């Protein structure tokens, strides 16, 4: 089976949320950011599944943060978009814009 080269819709949303959050991107904040901007609830299980997949494709990197009492003494895992990830998101943006261009029915929405 050919390796998948494109980003899925949720992967796209997660990478954009990471870019919006910058240094403060960890599980809870990412899910809240997606909820705030897209108006859709995200389960932490599917979010971490996606982040793990993105990290295995080297589009995202992660580092352990500090453990705090409000997290039951567990550490945060902070995520960042890598240079590869930025290239991939730009590529996806170009592809989507090309698809979007010239669609009169969608001009009002833009």
């Amino acid at each position, binding site marked *: 089976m050919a390796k998948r080269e494109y980003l899925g819709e949720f992967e796209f949303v997660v990478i954009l949320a990471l870019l919006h959050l910058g240094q403060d991107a960890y599980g809870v904040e990412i*899910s809240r950011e997606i909820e705030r901007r897209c108006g859709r609830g995200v389960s*932490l*299980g599917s979010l971490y*599944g996606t982040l793990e997949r993105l990290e295995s494709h080297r589009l995202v990197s992660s580092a352990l943060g500090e453990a705090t009492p*409000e997290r*039951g003494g*567990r550490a*945060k895992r902070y995520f960042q978009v890598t240079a590869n990830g930025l290239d991939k998101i730009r590529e996806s943006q170009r592809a989507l814009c090309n698809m979007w261009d010239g669609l009169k029915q969608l001009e009002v929405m833009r």
Partner: protein
Amino acid sequence: MSALKPPALATWLLGLMDSDAWQDAVAGDLFEDYQQRRSSTWYWCQVLMVVAISVGKDLRHHSVLALRALAVAVLSLCLAHSLVSELGVVRRVMHMASPLLGWWPSVVIVAALEPFLICGPAGLAVALTHRKRGATMVLLYVAALFAILACLCANRAHWTPGCVVFWESAVFALAGALFGGFLGCAWEGFSRTRAI
């Protein structure tokens, strides 16, 4: 203000899945979000989702281990079945219980005890032979057992006493598998903590 504790059983189930730092971060995120949402149902749903995704991932990446777990389960079931029949534990219980309780209640007890004693050790064996992936393999074993029992029960969907006893046996078989499996996982977790 002290932190609100999320449902302990769900947290324990989450802890069984994997011991790496990812799982620790997920548990921390769930704990943090739970302080705001304060809904046990939400917490349980999130934990079950994490468990389902983690099991799916493990099965995709460790398909050989999954086959081995099913083989261990089948062998253990055969062994436990022979031992239970050979030692006559159930026959003895029935013999002791029938003068005290009557024939019908003793049949009900035996129908619960026998599958529990057969499926429980198999779950324990699966958990103990798969250490870090124990919980995933136990859930796979329980799911396979459930599928087989559901097929058998579907053919006996009548309200006759024989069918009711059969359903009871199926429920106790699943309960035994879960009990044995999670006992093994808890034991593995305990020995890992002690080793650290």
